[in-house]
């Protein structure tokens, strides 16, 4: 499999949904430490809605479907993370809506736009201890391996996102509720950054499964 189509997007969203569902308590917990503890709840809600939409949508272009998912997430999950991810899907999808299928090159476009739009919306940059610290390195890894196979490039992205998660834990939070904790945020794992790894993980599981 060298490209992703509608069926693949549907399966990827299901993968992400499953990962989120089985980590609901963990997200709850991470967000409780320096937030309001709703992250597990809003993420399961967001991806349940996204999955429902992905299954029933008649959209034929992967990028357009991804944009639709963003619109649905924005309506159902207006929390910080919900809105950011919604923005990511909308702008990421838009960046590739002229392609019928997604190869390594388009996947890089998608995540670049995804990460960039979150940075715009959240007025944040890498190093702020947010979802960007896992998604931005992943997008960079996709860019550098864009001429490799899908499996190779998503594997590189996965590795980058996990490294990013480790790095972000050592950072000091600058945005959202976590920022109120200032230096106390150092050493604590960020919920949003964790969600970033789950999104990449969903793509990774689908792509590697099919290749086996």
């Amino acid at each position, binding site marked *: 499999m060298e490209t992703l189509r509608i069926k693949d997007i549907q399966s990827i969203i299901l993968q992400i949904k499953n990962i989120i569902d089985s980590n609901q308590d963990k997200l709850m917990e991470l967000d*409780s430490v320096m937030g*309001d*503890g*709703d992250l597990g709840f*809003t993420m399961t809600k967001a991806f349940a809605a996204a999955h429902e939409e992905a299954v029933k949508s008649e959209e034929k272009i992967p990028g357009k479907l991804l944009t639709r998912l963003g619109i649905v997430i*924005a*309506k*159902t999950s*207006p*929390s*910080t993370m919900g*809105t*950011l991810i919604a*923005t990511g899907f909308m702008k990421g999808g838009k960046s590739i809506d002229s392609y019928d299928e997604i190869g390594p090159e388009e996947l890089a476009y998608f995540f670049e736009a995804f990460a960039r739009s979150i940075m715009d*919306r*959240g007025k944040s940059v890498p190093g702020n201890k947010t979802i960007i610290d896992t998604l931005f390195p992943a997008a960079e890894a996709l860019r550098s391996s864009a001429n490799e196979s899908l499996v190779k490039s998503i594997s590189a992205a996965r590795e980058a996102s996990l490294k990013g998660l480790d790095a972000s834990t050592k950072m000091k939070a600058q*945005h*959202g*509720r976590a*920022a*109120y*904790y200032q230096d106390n945020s150092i050493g604590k794992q960020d919920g949003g950054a964790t969600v970033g790894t789950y999104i990449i993980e969903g793509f990774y599981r689908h792509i590697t499964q099919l290749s086996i």
Partner: protein
Amino acid sequence: MNDPVHFVDEMLQGILIAHPDQLTTVDGNLRCIVKTNKEKKNKVGIATGGGSGHLPLFLGYVGDGLLDGCAVGGVFQSPSSDQMLEVTKSIDQGAGVLYIYGNYGGDIMNFDMAAEMADMEGIKVAQVIAGEDVASAPKGEEGKRRGVAGIFYAFKIAGALAGEMASLEEVKRIAEKTCANIRTMGVALTACIVPEAGRASFTIGDNEMEIGMGIHGEPGIRRGALQKADDIVQQMADKILADLPYEKGDEVSVLLNGLGATPKEELYIMARKLHEILKAKGISVFNTYVGEFATSMEMAGASISLLKLDGELKRLLSKPANSPFFTQVQL
């Protein structure tokens, strides 16, 4: 309480049925509340939005001489950009719409999205973000401060100017000016309880208090043994006065806000001490509001806000206003 899942919708149904002459929905969407009687053509519309669980914030300030509409989120949750757009379209009278809301990440992103969407529909939108809780970020980083009870003043004053048919730019200017002149400090004695969680997400001991705690339980600046009301007020006032700073000869409006479970009696005991402190500093008090203006479910505690006044702010603050939650005659 009934089923916590329906908490917000049942509350909204109650509000709408109790005040049908004053509040209604946009096309039946419970979470989009606007005035029943539309405003005059070309009046700037003012919208707010935010999480539920803070009544009278936010929708309680939709009324005459105040706001035109409000997007209502779940308990302590931002409403969606969608809802905001619906409210915006409903209240625009051709002169544009001003968003005034509190400085919380989720709300900002959603209002930003709504503003972009409104722009695409040809509606002029401006935004003013209120953040006046001195406990939430140090001086010099005012932009990071949370918006709490003092936002009431921005609603009141911007609403009064909009009623005079001022332009969007003018209404935005006065809202910004108001926000820049407010400072607030809070103290919490018990935790707030979110209905869906059913229990407090943190605890404050029986004989403890936390100075500077936010209205969602955000960390304050000092947790300690419960002190006398006078001592608490002194500490809160010290922080507030030094921050703007408010100085000898200044004239202020005072807002003593209860967070939900604190008796009005206690708020007045605090008001007494605060007036004493202000008098000693040579700061005169134009008027005093005491009551619940921004709450946090069953949280026991209070906040103090000061608004530094000039002639313009005083004139607008004095104008009458009327919503189901706040009624004022001409001062």
